[in-house]
């Protein structure tokens, strides 16, 4: 079961898209998995032949669990391999031997905890994990005071559906997933915030000229230019693009932009638009449209989940002037764009009216300083002044 986001703990296998004996190639969609947030199409990590499907549809399994076994592709030397998802699972702290200080399972790396060891059965630990119950606060009534599954369920105040999960409560699950990730962010990440107003008159004039001869289906939105500018700026100021893990910043080699997409029924997802620095604004627009459509119909791909290296959120459509976001851990920065509105703009001693948007940065002070953050926002501004080069 691939980790499809730092906040994911488990997934329910909805269906297999392959059968035993099928030959698969890296990137093929092999299964569909339900998470708290969406239905995700899982891509395979390597070529091979499906030898065994280990998990039955309808079963909920924790991140890192083996889903299937792959044999070598025809003609290759025999070397059995596990079916690895396209997003390699992050190291998984299951089974948890030490009660964490707060119920934040599925962290990318287990962190040392000073909490005392809790006696609990393995099943109780798994159920506690699923029900978000902190074992440290559960009264154990098993042999020798050990915590049993029944104790955990009592503590959770509800019964558990059993090994086979029922259809997930998508909205409730999404709320919990967002709560877990955002609470962790605010607990662990010392955010600093910067904002700047950007004159978008050149960018919008260029866009209008580009769009005029185009049919509706080929038109670009300002968001495509904003995303492209952020991706290029991330290459210039790489400290904004990566992960803070094990006490240090790991720069990402690719620029995968997490795009905050609000869902119509409530909640949000931030799937990744991959390699934004290597795609044209047109290509970004096409992929963004596809991503939004699929996010809202609930079908995203595993390579899009959990692979974002920097997130961008755009609340301009709702009319807000600026958005100071909460970083999605373990990422280290989040860029926000507010509404584009006409504003008085003084330049060279003259006052004019320009379309202006506020770009903001929330960044992790462990990974970068305000000076670099300012350089990053300045780079976004500069890039948007030359839209034809985007």
């Amino acid at each position, binding site marked *: 079961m691939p980790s499809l986001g730092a906040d994911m703990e488990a997934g329910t296998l909805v269906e297999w898209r392959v059968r035993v004996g099928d030959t698969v190639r890296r990137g093929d969609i092999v299964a569909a998995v339900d998470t708290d947030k969406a239905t995700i199409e899982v891509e395979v990590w390597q070529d091979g032949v499906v030898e065994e499907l280990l998990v039955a549809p309808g079963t909920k399994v924790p991140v890192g669990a083996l889903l299937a076994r792959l044999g070598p592709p025809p003609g290759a030397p025999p070397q059995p391999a596990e079916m690895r998802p396209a997003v390699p699972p992050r190291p998984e702290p299951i089974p948890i031997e030490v009660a964490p200080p707060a119920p934040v399972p599925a962290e990318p790396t287990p962190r040392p905890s000073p909490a005392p060891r809790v006696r609990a059965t393995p099943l109780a630990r798994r159920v506690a994990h699923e029900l978000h119950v902190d074992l440290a606060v559960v009264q154990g009534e098993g042999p020798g005071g050990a915590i049993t599954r029944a104790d955990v369920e009592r503590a959770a105040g509800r019964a558990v559906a059993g090994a086979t999960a029922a259809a997930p409560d998508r909205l409730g699950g999404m709320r919990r997933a967002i709560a877990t990730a955002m609470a962790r962010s605010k607990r662990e990440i010392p955010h600093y915030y910067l904002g700047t107003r950007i004159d978008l008159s050149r960018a919008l004039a260029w866009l*209008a000229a580009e*769009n*005029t001869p*185009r*049919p*509706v*289906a080929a*038109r670009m*939105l*300002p*968001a495509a230019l904003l995303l492209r500018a952020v991706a290029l700026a991330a290459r210039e100021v790489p400290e904004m693009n990566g992960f803070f893990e094990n006490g240090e910043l790991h720069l990402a080699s690719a620029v995968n932009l997490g795009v905050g997409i*609000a869902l*119509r*029924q409530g909640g949000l997802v931030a799937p990744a638009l991959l390699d934004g620095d290597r795609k044209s604004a047109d290509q970004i627009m096409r992929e*963004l*449209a596809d991503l*939004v*459509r699929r996010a809202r119909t609930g079908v995203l791909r595993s390579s899009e989940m959990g692979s974002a290296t920097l997130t961008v959120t755009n609340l301009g*459509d*709702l009319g807000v002037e600026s958005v100071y976001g909460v970083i999605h851990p373990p990422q280290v920065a989040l860029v926000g764009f507010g509404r584009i509105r006409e504003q008085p703009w003084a330049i060279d001693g003259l006052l004019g009216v320009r379309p202006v948007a506020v770009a903001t940065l929330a960044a992790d002070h462990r990974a970068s300083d305000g000076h670099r953050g300012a350089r990053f926002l300045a780079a976004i501004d500069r890039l948007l002044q030359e839209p034809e080069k985007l």
Partner: protein
Amino acid sequence: MTREDIRTAVLASLAEIAPEADLARLPPGAELREVLDLDSMDFLRFLQALAEATGIEVPESEVSKLATLGACIDYLAARAG
């Protein structure tokens, strides 16, 4: 294409984007983006769906003429006629 055909096409296009909305009770004068909570991507998809259903491409410069259901029908009826 009659006005009723156009109205049906507009409502069907909106239903693709906002499937949860009660479009039968949509006031003709209400701002679509406001009442249906459409963002710019939604609105672009709506225009795309309209183009597919009616064959009418709305130029970028005239998009603002389609702000309400009534305005959409008027605009498309004028273009179709």
